[in-house]
């Protein structure tokens, strides 16, 4: 059973608000990821991290920022939310393929609606 948690599950906020989406995993995985996915659509990689104090931007340009101060924690922050940020945000983690399965373990997602 994967142990990766996202909060909040659902969030409705007004334009211009600052939000932080939390993601924590208890599996000790090195790598963590944030994806953006609209219902029934593809997953876009927006941020990833291969360890503490390492973060990289993904292929989808995003105004969000992330931090990785602790192995288990990978929060995503939007300083000023806009309606275009309305989407589902999926957090995932994995081990190195040669040490583990390389499989991505996903949280249940945070569905963000910006009015």
């Amino acid at each position, binding site marked *: 059973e994967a142990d990766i948690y996202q909060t909040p599950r659902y969030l409705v906020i007004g334009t211009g608000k600052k939000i932080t989406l939390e993601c924590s995993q208890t599996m000790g995985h090195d*790598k963590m990821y944030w994806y953006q996915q609209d219902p029934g659509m593809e997953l876009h*990689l927006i941020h*990833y991290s291969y360890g503490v104090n390492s973060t990289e931007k993904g292929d989808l340009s995003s105004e969000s920022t992330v931090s990785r101060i602790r192995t288990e924690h990978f929060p995503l922050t939007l300083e000023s939310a806009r309606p275009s940020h309305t989407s589902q945000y999926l957090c995932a983690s994995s081990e190195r393929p040669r040490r583990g399965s390389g*499989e991505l373990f996903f949280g249940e997602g945070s569905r963000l609606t910006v009015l």
Partner: protein
Amino acid sequence: AQSVTQPDIHITVSEGASLELRCNYSYGATPYLFWYVQSPGQGLQLLLKYFSGDTLVQGIKGFEAEFKRSQSSFNLRKPSVHWSDAAEYFCAVGLGSSASKIIFGSGTRLSIRP
């Protein structure tokens, strides 16, 4: 540029028929390769993966995939589909020496005809 292409947006097959979903990637080296399935309103589940060795890999639910280096492809197959296989299927590649960056294709929606 690194990319994953799933050329078929939507495929419909009859129950009991065979299935092949296509996946091609663009990358300067052999990536780590994955297939995930997502049922409506559900999370993603790993079907199978390829890192090295035998290019034909077996996965869960009767799925298999074959890595073809010359074609940069990793197509997913199943000899006989079941109605419960209707879902969205995503091919993914892990880039770098430890697959630190994992990107997904646009997905193929599979419908099953009774």
